């Protein structure tokens, strides 16, 4: 698995809740439409600006709140990784289980501004601002977690292990 990523950065603040990323009204929508409402109130219009390979850098207590799978929406938009000074553990697990790397890096928001380019390695546990050269250490993910990411998430892993029929048209989306 390639654990080195480079991407354009978007910075958000502390305690961004799941209600701010996957509001209740979006839970009634198919995933591609629901994804258009991430940060609907915090950063209106953001989902038009974000692109494939981008990296979201957040502050402390990122993803406080519900079990709703926000990571599926980030993946729908092509976001390549989440970085936060601190993750809510349920939110972090959701990211991993949806095949979205999530790296904890204290001090990350001070090292980046919107539009900067970041390089990171989520197995080695570091992130670098390519323009300033600032390199910060992060919490490397344990091997068990890297295995889930290597499989592309928990559902592909289960398909590989024979618990789900191999996807032909993808999981049911209503």
């Amino acid at each position, binding site marked *: 698995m390639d654990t080195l990523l480079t991407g354009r950065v978007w910075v958000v603040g502390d305690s961004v809740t799941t209600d701010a990323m996957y509001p209740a009204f979006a839970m009634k929508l198919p995933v591609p439409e629901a994804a258009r409402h991430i940060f609907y109130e915090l950063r209106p219009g953001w989902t038009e600006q974000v692109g494939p390979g981008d990296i979201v850098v957040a502050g402390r207590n990122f993803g406080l709140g519900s079990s709703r799978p926000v990571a599926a929406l980030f993946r729908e938009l092509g976001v390549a990784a989440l970085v936060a000074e601190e993750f*809510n553990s349920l939110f972090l697990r959701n990211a991993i289980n949806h095949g979205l790397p999530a790296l904890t890096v204290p001090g990350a928001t001070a090292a980046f501004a919107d539009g900067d380019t970041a390089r990171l390695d989520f197995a080695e546990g570091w992130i670098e601002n390519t323009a300033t050269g600032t390199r910060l250490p992060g919490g490397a993910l344990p091997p068990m977690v890297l295995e889930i990411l290597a499989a592309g998430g928990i559902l592909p892993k289960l398909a590989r292990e*024979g618990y789900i029929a191999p996807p032909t048209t993808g*999981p049911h989306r209503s």
Partner: protein
Amino acid sequence: MGMTMIERILARKAGLAQVSAGQTVVCEVDMTVMIDLQFATAWTPPLRINDPDKVAVVMDHAVPAPSVHDAAGGTRARAFARDFGIARFYDVGRHGICHQVIAENGLARPGEILACTDSHTCAAGAYNTAARGLGPAEIYSILCTGSTWFQVAPTVRYEFTGTRPAAVSGKDVFLHIAGVYGDATNQNLEYGGPGLASIPMSDRRTIATQGAEISADFSTFPADELCRDFIERHSPGGAPFTAADPDPDAVYAAVRTVDLDTLVPQVARPGTVSRNSFPVTEIERRKVDQCFIGSCANGQLEDLAVAAAIVRGRTVAPGVRLLVTPASQQVYRDALRAGYLQDLADAGAVVTNSTCGACFGYHMGLLAPGEVCLTSSTRNFTGRMGSPDAEIYMASPATVAASALTGYVTDPRTELN
């Protein structure tokens, strides 16, 4: 080195003699609870599951179905329960908010691990269960394999002393803790101490439930006499369990004492409970448009009893909507029989079906821009209950009921006399 309550359970279920903070462990899960939303948006039936006796399915978040989208999820949930022989299927009519259903049916047992698709699963920590919310994909994985991994977080212990005053509920105890100590991200919370005997099981569940709002992993209480009585009442003749007590030399990130004698009713201001909760006496005189009593945290029979006692023979203030959602169909029936629902409806409250609906702003009781809500539910995040331009204050059922009568945030002690 001694273990905390949660470390003891995780060690036992991982088959290890010892675990400590920082370790990653794989544990067997004793009970996996799936909710209706799991079937509504992305669902593929598995080819095989681990054990149908270790699974329950609860219809709660969107019932009776408010949309075709949710109705179709119900169809898939019923097919799943039928095809895989899930006996513990709580369909509409014997449904309720999953954490109440878990409690009523003895699904959470001391010393065991319970996983569920809802983030307030930490509620079952009131019964000495290592319980936490996990995403739908991970619950699906446990359904298939019977196990999952945990990173053992450091534990903070709250030691209760003194005696809980009558006008102070579990909600007030929790809001006090959240207001003073703030977030507990990536920490476990453990409760105990001599004052615990004055905190009834319903209040313990409120406190355990709301660990989610301060971002904690697990919240657990000891299996004391009150807890054992509760378990015996709700699963008479159930299999014996092995409760988990902390070791005397357990290692904690912090031990904090809460003197219950000194507590007063609390109110959280809009946005968060964390370092944003205050004694009701310090809260501004704020006109409220909607008052809500319900949710997994505070739709229990005891909560409805307190609210009914306050509003009995009185009338909700003009311009105020009081919504009451019993936490389960069983609570609804018990509250109906006890006359609580009559008292509430007579006072002008709208008593709704048991569902998560209003708490998460999904299909009823939504707030308009500019409105102010006082809620006893779980979250006061921006946009949680409708418009992001509405304000959500949070307090106990007693404070919400008293405020519904006056039309502004009110100290319940003035209305209890």
